């Protein structure tokens, strides 16, 4: 059966833990002089990126290459997409080239879901619009588990632009699956409609939540997705919701500070905080490679995927 990783909810507790355990062994590979495994030899992974991304694309590329897969990078700029080719036609072209997996980033929420109905290989959502980014949630969970030894019971505070953040949504869903207690903190204007249906606490007051947080995750203010004014100005946002040294001092002693990147130093996070010993920002990047190796291995390494879910609305073997 063909399976995909489109949403954090494609995983249950058992399979998410399998990803994290597998990533742990993949991380050891990074410590060796020969950072390569033969596991996906002869398989083809296509990175289909319709949005700019350095971190995620190179992370997936490195992950696939360390597993000996052939990698094709396909970005919207400089491809037939700029000549007006549709997602479907691009997908069918990649399909004809024999892609075993398509890693897709798209500005449209739900684009990878559509893609999953059109291609034969597994689709990994590498971020779709303001919807989901499941591998980011997995690498964040992996980072928490490595730093704090557990995920269950952790109080995780996610601060910032929840409205436009696919990272926040995937994190809240995955943290809930893994038994942690997420809280999102944002100005009311940056909370999505329907937030009360998310498995998370909601707060407008960062200072009230920080003393009760094991993890605080700061999100970038996504100016490129903002179509209206959501707060008076950057200085005010920073004063109300930015993480500076004073606020860090209110955290419990062993709490960690995370950021999915790219960060705006001085806006949502002060430079001194980003560079402090509590910050896991650089580790998150390294962990991203390990987690994506684990995901690719579990989707492509065997006769059938060991994780993920079938695409909704498509029957097995159905051709577009």
């Amino acid at each position, binding site marked *: 059966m063909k399976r995909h990783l489109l949403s954090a909810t494609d995983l249950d507790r058992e399979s998410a833990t399998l990803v994290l355990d597998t990533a742990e062994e993949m991380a050891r590979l990074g410590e*060796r002089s020969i950072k390569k495994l033969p596991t996906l030899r002869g398989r083809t992974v296509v990175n289909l990126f319709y949005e700019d991304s350095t971190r995620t694309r190179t992370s997936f590329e490195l992950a696939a290459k360390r597993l000996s897969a052939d990698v094709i990078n396909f970005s919207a700029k400089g491809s037939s997409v700029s000549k007006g080719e549709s997602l479907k036609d691009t997908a069918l072209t990649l399909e004809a080239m024999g892609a075993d997996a398509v890693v897709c980033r798209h500005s449209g929420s739900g684009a990878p879901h559509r893609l999953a109905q059109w291609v034969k290989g597994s689709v990994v959502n590498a971020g779709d619009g303001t919807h989901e980014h499941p591998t980011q949630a997995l690498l964040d969970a992996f980072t928490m588990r490595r730093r704090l030894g557990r995920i269950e019971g952790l109080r995780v505070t996610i601060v910032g632009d929840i409205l436009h953040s696919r990272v926040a949504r995937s994190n809240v869903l995955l943290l809930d699956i893994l038994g942690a207690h997420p809280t999102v903190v944002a100005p009311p204007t940056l909370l999505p409609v329907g937030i009360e249906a998310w498995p998370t606490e909601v707060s407008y007051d960062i200072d009230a939540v920080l003393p009760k947080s094991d993890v605080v995750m700061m999100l970038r203010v996504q100016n490129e997705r903002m179509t209206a004014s959501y707060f008076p100005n950057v200085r005010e946002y920073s004063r109300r919701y930015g993480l500076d040294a004073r606020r860090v001092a209110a955290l419990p002693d062993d709490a960690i500070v995370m950021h999915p990147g790219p960060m705006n130093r001085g806006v949502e996070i002060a430079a001194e905080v980003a560079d402090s010993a509590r910050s896991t920002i650089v580790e998150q990047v390294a962990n991203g490679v390990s987690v994506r190796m684990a995901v690719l291995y579990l*989707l492509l*390494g065997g006769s*059938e995927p*060991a994780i993920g879910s079938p695409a909704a609305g498509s029957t097995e073997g159905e051709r577009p």
Partner: protein
Amino acid sequence: MSASVTPPTSPRATSAPEPPDGRSVLDPADVGRALTRIAHEILERTKGGDDLVLLGIPTRGVTIANRLAARIRAVEGLEVPVGSLDITMYRDDLRLRLPRALETTDVPGGVDHKLVVLVDDVLFTGRTVRAALDALSDLGRPRAVQLAVLVDRGHRELPIRADYVGKNLPTSRTQLVSVRLAEIDGSDAVVVGEAS
């Protein structure tokens, strides 16, 4: 290579499931004696065990490697590094089954210029050992590689043989050979059963 692509039972699977009505061929004392003899043979053959590293193949290979190290310590007072070598990612039948969870690879001190003794519970088709040799070459370049197994049950599909064997056990291909170790299974035994 035999005509059948997949052996009836994979070498690694032989130690995991319990044979339904097994016949015990080694009791705890036999297992103990076999390991003691292998430990002495390793010391003899490596002329005192300089640069020796024992690399167990999870799960039971690691347990056996630890026991061999303890015996070498008792006999010679020598601390031999024991490591664990996961071969999952190097298996030749990866694509024929579901992706499996990985075991630990941990090689204290590395393998460069060392005399590596691979340790496993059962030697069957030899495919596990082939995978282990591939895995090893990605970790470095040992001076030499040897193989120690508690049971050699025959039916090799590759040109591989063991340097140290606890017990040669004639079996048919369809039989299941299960090694039980106190640390994992509560007590020591080698059991042969018919596939159900």
